[in-house]
């Protein structure tokens, strides 16, 4: 059965009632993920931060698949869940810099730094210090394509409801971005 025909047949049940969820690190592209994940719960079981929770009924046939709600419990990139997955829905990643759960997006209307208030909470929260989020000349946060989408910035942001949010994308969906990942300006890095 061709992929297109399958998508059509499944359309009425798979229609998303909620925005796409943030997946654990190493997740296969969203189109395959819900098919490969057998809802065995092992990823959630090994997560020491209790950051993985089963999706609810609002996700239709994706109910029961693991998702991260970054504002409540972000991913700390400990990388224990991918090897726990038995079905290939999560693939082990050695280098945490290759993780692509999503991409953080700054809401300029709510970010304190954009209001002229000194705040670098997201920069300090970022596990890729100085690489994924950098400051521009006006000391405002700028997310680079090195962002892995772990959600630690979203978790720590002091603004009401968080002024920086991770836009989910499964690893494969940003394969192109990973290919051009070589350029990305290096930040001050070890300085802090």
């Amino acid at each position: 059965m061709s992929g297109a025909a399958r998508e059509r047949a499944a359309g009425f049940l798979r229609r998303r009632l909620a925005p796409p969820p943030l997946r654990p690190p190493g997740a296969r592209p969203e189109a395959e993920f819900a098919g490969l994940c057998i809802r065995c719960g092992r990823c959630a079981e090994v997560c020491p931060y209790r950051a993985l929770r089963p999706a609810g009924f609002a996700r239709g046939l994706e109910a029961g698949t693991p998702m991260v709600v970054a504002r409540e419990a972000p991913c700390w990139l400990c990388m224990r869940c991918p090897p726990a997955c038995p079905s290939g829905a999560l693939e082990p990643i050695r280098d945490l810099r290759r993780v692509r759960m999503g991409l953080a997006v700054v809401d300029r209307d709510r970010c304190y730094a954009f209001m002229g208030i000194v705040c670098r909470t997201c920069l300090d929260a970022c596990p890729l210090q100085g690489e994924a989020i950098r400051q521009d000349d006006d000391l405002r946060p700028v997310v680079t394509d090195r962002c892995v989408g772990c959600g630690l910035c979203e978790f720590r942001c002091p603004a009401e409801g968080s002024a920086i949010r991770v836009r989910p994308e499964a690893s494969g969906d940003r394969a192109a971005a990973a290919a051009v990942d070589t350029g990305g300006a290096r930040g001050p890095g070890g300085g802090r």
Partner: protein
Amino acid sequence: MTGAGASGPGDGRWTRRRRAVQALFAAFYLVLPFLGSERLAGTMIALRVGPVDLAEPASAASAWLAGGAAAGALLGGVAPVVLLAALLGPVYCSWACPFGLLSEGIDRLRSRRRRWPDRSWERARLPRLLSLAALLGGSLLLGAPLAAILAPPRLATALPLEAVSARVVPAVTGTLLLAALALEVLGPRRILCRALCPAGGLAAWLRLPFAWRPRLDAARCLCPEVALCHQRCPWGIDPRRMRRADGCTCCMACVDGCPSGALVAIRGGPARG
């Protein structure tokens, strides 16, 4: 969960042993989420024990149909389970599955005095095949591993895991489990285990003709047409008319029920059929 009647039908040496093993498995799956271990983790459809990674065959097939070749990662874990089912039939249904324990408890409470009709297992054969076909076909069509999602062994073992590991109310798993139990209470006897469970259904078909199961010495059988062993079988199989894929789970309740010693659990000679 075995009901109030400790001395109800089916109690005997084998049944007592089996209850102990079932209780151990149920306790194991309840404690597992608290360990948070990587070497001992999972639910009944995908269990990791040290270096061994076990996977339930119907769930694996379902994931392969729904998600594609990457599900081949499950293949290595399927092999030992297929071997077990080939040699013993769906033995984990009656000895390990916590849902099976719940189902047996419900059946005991609701039908202490009822008898299995003749040919009861034959009536379950077609629904069992249809259920497996529908769940696997649906997996391919909808792109979701339905046989894994709806497998009663997963529902029963994922409930404590989700509640403990994710610290959330397991709404989806809980609702599906309640629906399954409601069907057990209101529907035909042991409908999920006998006819609808994809894990048990596939294991029943995987059994090889010479696999281990109770042996009948027909010459010693003294029962009339309505036999005690038939009435005690939790699946309504008549042990005097055994067939390869009748779904016998080697629970040995028939051996416990046999008054003449015609049925034995362990001894040579091929099973009939």
